[in-house]
Every structure is written in C-alpha cells, then in structure tokens.
C-alpha cells in the first residue's frame, strides 16, 4: 500500500459519525473512556496551538517575570496563582503544553525514523546484518531507559534538544523490533518475491514495499507512546537535565515549586503536575481502548 492509500483507508474507509455495527470505529465509540481521552488529547493540541490567545498574560507564559505579583495564591485574576517570579501559573501551564507535545512528537519522530529503517533493514536482509543490528538493539534495551537517558543528557548538557536526543536513544530499539517482525512476514509475500525476480534493487524494495506495509502498526504505537515520552521528558526536566528556564515546561515547573511546598504554596507544583498527569493518562487510556478494540477477544471487556 502506498502512503496515500493508507491515508485514504484511514479517512475514507470508516464513516466516523455512523459507523457500521461491529466495525472497529463502532466498538471504539462504545468505549466511553477512550472517547473521552481522545477528546481530551484533541483539546490539549488546541490549547498548545492557541496558548497565546487563551491567557491575558502570554508574555508571562513565555517566561517574562512580573516580580510584584510573586507567589500569589489562586484568585480570580490568577486562577492557578503565581510563581516565585510573579508569572501567572495558568499561562505557564498552557504554554507548557507546547513544550510537552513538541518534545513528545520529536522523540517519537526520531525514534520511529531510526528504528524503522534499522528494523526493515534487519528483517529484509537477514543474515549477519540482521544479527548485528539485533544484538545492538539488545544492548540498548538492557539499560533501564531513564538511567541511560539521564546519563546521555548529562553528557550532552541540559537543553530541550539534548533531552529529546537522549530519550530517543532509549526508544528506537522498540521500533526496530516491531518493524523487523513485520518486515520478515512481508518479505515472503509473492509481490516482494516477484519484484526481486524482475531485478528491482533492495533499497527500492525496502522503500516501496516493506516500509509502507510496516508503517501502520508503527504509527499507531508511536501515537500511543507519546504519553510515555512526555513523562520521560518531564522527568529529565525535573532533574534539571531538560528544558532550561525560562522556557515553560511542566517538569521544570514542578521542580521549581518543590522548595515552596514547605511554606504551603501548594499551587506552584500542583497545577502543572495535574496537566502532565491528565495528558499522559489520556494517551494511555486511548492506547488501552485501541488495544481492546483491535482484539476481538478483548471486546468482552466493553460489555
């Protein structure tokens, strides 16, 4: 299937508003929890895009201090209160959605690109190349992911790009494994054999026939993994290995708020944490729903 064919199937194949009974979309819509999560994710995307227009303090959201208003508890003017530099916490939370989503998407994009190419290469070629690629994959999977990401980020120095790179280094092996399995099964199909028979070169076969076929499960997995990658970025930021100030970031905001807990300023870490938690949870609930829907045996869970 060509990429265009894939999009056509995703958009045209289903009728989203009136799905046929028994179709995947029909089952998905029965899973109320998953539908709510999807709605929340779409809302988060909109918030990230529209952040500057959703708050009266867009400059504070981007990091401009307003020192006279520091550490104000939640009020009508500042529903989430203000932080140690007097910035509106709500504005910071809204802008933080941008950092979180950009970082999450970047991590998945890098890991998918790298992992898929290696996996397709390993699965299609087999032999020693397969062996080498898979052993390297084993080594990277042997590390507890956060520890490896921390160490790489510490070597590279704290910045958003480096955090993204460090986390991608721990993520690609999963896609290599996933793609390799798919590639092995596609390799034996008749049309691939036919293509080889008429002398099409390997790179063209991988590009035209293997990759488009392995892409669907990989893209689904990548979307569902967004939540987990956002969690990891925020953990690095919390440790001071991610986004440096004044860029708005949920993990960094929680870390800044930590010192103010003992004096009872609960709002500084609570609200960014809530945004983080709900975003990650929506991705995970959506993933759970997709898994139930795509597995006919599990559909019994939706009774």
């Amino acid at each position, binding site marked *: 299937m060509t990429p265009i064919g894939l999009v056509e199937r995703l958009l045209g194949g289903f009728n989203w508003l009136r799905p046929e009974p028994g179709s995947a979309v029909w089952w998905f819509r029965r899973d109320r*929890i998953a539908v709510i999560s999807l709605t929340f994710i779409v809302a988060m995307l909109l918030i990230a895009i529209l952040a500057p227009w959703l708050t009266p303090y867009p400059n504070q959201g981007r990091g401009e201090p307003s020192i006279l208003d520091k550490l104000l508890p939640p009020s009508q003017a500042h529903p989430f209160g203000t932080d140690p530099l007097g910035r509106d916490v709500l504005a910071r939370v809204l802008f933080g959605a941008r950092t979180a989503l950009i970082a999450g998407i970047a991590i998945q994009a890098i890991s998918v690109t790298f992992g898929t190419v290696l996996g397709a290469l390993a699965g299609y070629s087999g032999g020693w190349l397969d062996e080498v690629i898979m*052993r*390297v994959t*084993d*080594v*990277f999977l*042997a*590390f*507890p*992911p*956060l*520890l*490896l990401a*921390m*160490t*790489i980020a*510490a*070597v590279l*120095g704290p910045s958003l790009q480096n955090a993204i790179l460090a986390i991608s280094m721990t993520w690609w092996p999963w896609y290599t494994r996933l793609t390799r399995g798919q590639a092995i099964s596609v390799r034996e199909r008749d049309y691939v054999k036919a293509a080889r028979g008429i002398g099409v070169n390997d790179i063209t076969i991988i590009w035209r026939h293997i990759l488009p076929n392995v892409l669907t499960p990989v893209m689904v997995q990548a979307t569902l993994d967004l*939540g987990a990658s956002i*969690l990891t970025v*925020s*953990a690095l930021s*919390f*440790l*001071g*290995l991610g986004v440096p100030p004044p860029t708005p970031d949920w*993990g960094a905001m*929680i*870390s800044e*708020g*930590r010192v103010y*807990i*003992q004096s*009872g300023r*609960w709002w500084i*870490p*609570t609200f960014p*944490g809530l945004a*983080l*938690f709900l975003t*990650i*949870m929506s*991705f*995970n*609930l959506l993933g*759970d729903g997709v898994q139930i829907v795509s597995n006919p045996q599990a559909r*019994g*869970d*939706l*009774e």
Partner: protein
Amino acid sequence: MSRGEYLLRRLGLGVLVILGVMMVTFVLSRVVPGDPARLYLGPRAQAQALEQVREELGLNDPLPKQFVRYVTSTLRGELGYSFRTKRPIIQDIKVRLPATMELVICATLLALAVGVPVGVLGAAGRGKIFDQLSRVISIAGVSMPAFWLALLLQLTFFLWLGWLPLGGRLSQQVQLGSPIERVTGFNLIDAAISSNWVAWRDAVMHTIMPVVVLATYPISLSIRMTRASMVDVLSETYITAARAAGLTEREVLFKLALKNAIVPTLTMMGLLFAYSITGAVLVEIVFTWPGMGSYMTDAILYGDIYVLFAVTLVVTVIYILINLVVDFIQAALDPRVRIGRGGEV
C-alpha cells in the same frame, strides 16, 4: 534444544549484552566534553601535571587498549573515583545500595500484595464496575509522574495532616538518641535485630511515603498482568469443570486459577525491578533518601559525571542478572519456554 543448551545460550547472550553495555558506557565516557585529567586535578593544574595524570590514567593509550583495561578493572570492582566525595565510587555504592534496595523491595512486595488480588477480582467480574474502575486506576498508576505524586503526599501527610515526616531515613533525635547499629544496611532489619523499637518505628514512618510512591507503577503493572492472565485461564475448560463440580467461586479463583495465572506476573519481577530502581531516582530526591538515586542526582548537580556511568553500569548489570535468573526459573517451571522463546532470542 535441551534445557542445558538453552541455559548456556541464554548465559552467553547475557555476557555479550553486558559487554555491549560496557561498550556504550565506555564510548559515552570518552565523548564527555572536558578533560578527565583536568577534572581530576582541578582547573588550575599545570600542563606537566596534567600530562602525568593522563599517562597514569592511561588516557594516552589507543582506544581498544583503554576499553580492555576498562572492562578488566570494572570486573575487579574498580569503578573509578567520585570527584565530589573523593572516594572510590564502589565504596559509595556499597553504602547507598541497601538504602535503595530497602525501598525497591518493600515497593515490589506491596505491588504484589495489592496488584494480584485486585487483578483476580477484576478478571472475575470482567466488564463490571470494579473491573472498569481498576482499569482506570491501573492506568492512572502508570501515568502518574512519581515526583509529582511524592510532592502531593508531602503536602497532604506532612504539611496538612502532620502524620508523616517530610523526608530522610530517620529523624535527627532518633539518629542521636538511639542510633541503629549497621549490620545489613537495611534500617528496618537492623533496628529489629537489635530490638531498637524506637528507631524501628521511626524508620517505618519514614519509609511509608517513598514506598507508596515507588509502588504506584508496579502495582498498576501487576494488576494488569494478573488480570490478563486470569482472563485467559478462566476461559479454560478445567475451570468450567471445577465450577460444575461445585467448587465455590473463591476456591476456583484463588486456589485453582491463580496458581496458573501467577506465573507471568512473577516473571515480570525483572521489569518491576527496573521500573522501581528508575523510579527511585526521582523519589529519592523528593524525600531526600540517601540512596543510589540521590547519589546520581547529586552527581548531576556537581558535574561528577563518572558516577553516572558507574551507577548506570552497576544497575544495568543487576537488571540483566535478575532477568537471567527469571528466565532460568521460568525455563525450569515451564518446558514450553525453551522451545517457544529459545528460538528467537
């Protein structure tokens, strides 16, 4: 493949992976910006002294030779010096590992104690309210940023209710008034051995919040694993037969079905360990718990980068070994494993 062959192959792969892991930490330690010799001597060192240290540390040797030396000295337990504590890293790890293991072990036990029964009940009433609720709760658990939950608990139980201490392993008064004699390094055990109940109670109070936070992820994981394998087992005919023979639902669930369903949950211990030890990094900073996690975060703060390589290496090797042991136990219990998974590893 015979059992012996399978185990040998598994062991060989494990050794290979450990070598690969060392290669990664070695390569990382060579791309660190900044000169290790300068780090060692401080910023105002003379050129001649720097050259001498470089020679001593073997930094002028070709890379393959350096790697061989790195592997052999690591195997001897020489992990280098911490520039911050001015002590061999292995010494620091020995002091701090028990503190972290105390948290990790308690969290894993808590995870099994809560996760298994909830998973069983969820599977028993598939799709019902309790099942839906435990599904949402278990997903909330895997989505929870540990450092945030830790702060919320501190707010609630320290600041507002005043029931639990803010952090640390022991209160200052207890540390001075009735100190714990160090035997195993596990405060809970050491205090109990010497019947130091004042300190024991204090240690328990300090352990509650970090353990609960650390257990959140493993609890969710074991709920989901147990539920999934219980759903499989409950659809088997021997369960229907047992029900028909008049066994009570309780006996069917907890005696008959769970015995088979628990194997996958137990083999997940390796994974649980990995998550707990990673979670410990985040939990320990918030609760100022003097373990491996705060050792790492202090190292980050002070640019003591070789500590990071050493700790990552040690934890990864422990993790690989635990997974090996789990594989061996699984192979011993279940002959299908050798054929099914032996082929593809």
